């Protein structure tokens, strides 16, 4: 089996999740009751037998470092390979690289040391369950220079407008990368490339003063390269705004979506917290809800997601809401269309109601 190494490039990802990204980058945002966004990318990589993963971090990466713990949860705290979080801390005055090329240039040791022949570069905003070995197989079958991964979406939502789209010919070659608002071939910010070729393109980009490897190094060269499009056909969500986050979360209440995302043979792993099983009191009433461990529920919860360690008091009512770690909802409080970040407290009988299309978001550690 050919080896692949992974790069998770957060350099150009914008932190547009309002209150949820005030103090953390998008990759570190909690998602699906017990995970962080980046867990999906890392788990997809390890499930595809990728054993070396570099994370190019630029801003607000402290909570990411805390969460990743050198890759422990993915068995990536290793002697050979493993997970490397690479914040920008370079001090070479002769360095002329710019943008994400700074990362590629200053972390070239990661590429040098890995034995892998191929590199899979990914962002953190596309939630999916994908096997990159399948991508490699197709990449080799068609003898591509670069293989980019896309999802053909059924319906275009606002979040898709911020993504690049692909025009593809009948041989699945990419003919253009664009922002056509009617194109449903959403580029998933993932591409596979031979390591030696990546080197070459990186050096060329730096020599030409480029600042965005994908746009300047790959997109700009489409006429001259064989850029192959790999269609990912599984469950997919793009999370790059509060609204898309809320929509993607709601989809998780669908059993088929969930079954496709969380699979025994390709599990999504995350940091272990050692919480007790969730406890439901005699007074509790829970419907159509995802509940993580450590919750203690005495009230009413429906169409919602409760992260680990949430307490819901007697008579409290929670609907269409996402309640993150360790929030405490006191008795008779009412929450509807709300996203609470970690460690929020809602006092007795308090009511917070957001709009279904624009949830009310409370930042970390807020008491109301």
């Amino acid at each position, binding site marked *: 089996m050919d080896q692949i190494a992974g790069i998770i490039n957060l350099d150009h990802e914008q932190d547009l999740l309002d209150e949820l990204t005030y103090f953390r980058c998008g990759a570190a945002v909690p998602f*699906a*009751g*017990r995970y962080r966004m980046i867990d999906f990318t890392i788990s997809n990589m390890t499930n595809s037998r990728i054993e070396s993963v570099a994370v190019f971090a630029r801003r607000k990466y402290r909570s990411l470092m805390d969460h990743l713990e050198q890759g422990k949860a993915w068995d990536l705290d290793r002697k050979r390979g493993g997970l490397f979080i690479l914040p920008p801390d370079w001090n070479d005055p002769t360095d002329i690289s710019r943008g994400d090329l700074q990362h590629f240039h200053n972390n070239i040791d990661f590429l040098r040391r890995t034995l892998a022949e191929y590199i899979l570069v990914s962002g953190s905003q596309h939630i999916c369950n994908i096997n990159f070995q399948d991508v490699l197989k197709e990449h080799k079958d068609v003898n591509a220079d670069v293989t980019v991964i896309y999802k053909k979406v059924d319906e275009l939502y606002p979040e898709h407008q911020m993504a690049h789209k692909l025009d593809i010919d009948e041989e699945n070659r990419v003919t253009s990368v664009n922002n056509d608002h009617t194109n449903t071939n959403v580029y998933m910010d993932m591409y596979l490339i031979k390591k030696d070729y990546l080197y070459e393109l990186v050096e060329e980009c730096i020599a030409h003063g480029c600042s965005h490897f994908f746009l300047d190094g790959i997109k700009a060269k489409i006429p001259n390269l064989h850029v192959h499009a790999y269609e990912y056909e599984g469950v997919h969500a793009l999370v790059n705004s509060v609204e898309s986050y809320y929509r993607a979360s709601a989809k998780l*209440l669908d*059993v088929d979506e*969930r079954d496709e*995302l*969380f699979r025994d043979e390709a*599990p*999504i*792993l*995350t940091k*272990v917290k*050692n*919480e*007790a*099983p*969730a*406890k*439901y*009191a*005699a*007074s*509790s*009433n*829970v*419907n*159509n*809800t*995802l*509940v*993580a*461990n*450590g919750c*203690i529920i005495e009230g009413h919860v*429906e169409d919602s*997601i*409760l992260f680990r360690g949430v307490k819901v008091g007697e008579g409290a009512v929670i609907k269409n809401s996402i309640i993150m770690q360790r929030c405490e909802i006191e008795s008779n409080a009412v929450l509807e269309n709300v996203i609470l970040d970690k460690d929020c407290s809602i006092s007795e009988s308090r009511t917070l109601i957001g709009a279904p299309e624009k949830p009310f978001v409370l930042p970390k550690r807020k008491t109301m």
Partner: protein
Amino acid sequence: MKNKECVAMLLAGGQGTRLKSLTKKIAKPAVYFGGKYRIIDFPLSNCTNSRIDTVGVLTQYEPLVLNDYIGIGAPWDLDRKYGGVSVLPPFMQAEGGGWYEGTANAIYRNLEFLKQYDPEHVLILSGDHIYKMDYSDMLDYHESTGADATISVLEVPWEDASRFGIMNTEENGRIDEFDEKPEFPKSNLASMGVYIFRWDVLKQYLMDDAEKEDSSHDFGKDIIPALLKDDKKLMAYTFDGYWKDVGTVDSLWEANMDLLQPKPELNLNDHTWRIYSKNPNQPPQYIAPSATVRNALINEGCRIYGTIDTSVIFYGVHVDESSVVKDSVVMPDVKIGKNVKINRAIIAKGSVIEDGAVIGDPDPDSEITLVAEEGSVMASSYAANS
């Protein structure tokens, strides 16, 4: 290398036959408890929370599951460079070998292991009990009294005292007599099977005991009496808190039900004394619109479409529509079909309960029904005790 202040030896070789089919393929300490845990999680978490970082686990009977579960000790933070958890099965030496012949013999056969760490004290634990205990408090007491050995005791109701090993003590806590299951108990201080010995004393008595042909090589029957006979200083350390021997199907069921109290005596949500366990990596549990859940502990990976009432549900359990699980314990990965009725039962790991099956007896005086591991129950059958 530095020596260790206190090394723990955890006796985990018991077969636990009174747990019936639950221990057919696994040793008793590996039996499931509390929706998420195995029994051995409690002593191991107690060790790590008490800052005891060196634990020998003495195995004998069906150690594969236990070995695999303990692994490198990472869940309990016992994957240490020096110390940590070591699984200690019987082994062969130049002069021969054989199975462990009693609790004292098991420790005796691992004196070399203890000598590596040359500890000041040795803590002896068993893998049969559910409790949260700070062994470092007991160690402080042991050190401050200058005892040769300290035995942890708890007050049991007088009427139950004759079922336990009873410590008769002087006013200052010094033990002057040990009564194994006395017909007429003089005290209600029952031994919890938790001992701290001074290492030099333990070593000497284990070596002496090994020479005695008539000895059963047991701590309670041989070592403690020998110490008392020699007038060694044995102190009783009184523990007060939740403690339960889960050695039978009924007591295992009861201990699970205890967790469903509004404020259970055994608090699993105390972040200052976490009970660690190996994580099965499952997504959050899903409670469907058709579900009714009340008075329950439910773990990750479950999907509940039916009714859960006063029950403990382990990870990966599916309960389909119109089924009712009441006063029961459902172990990992059990699949329960539609229109199933379960009352007062323990359903062992991986069982499949088909549509319409009826299990258990709602009569509060009835025995607890046990469905064996990976059992399959059809609609027509009524699970007997297995």
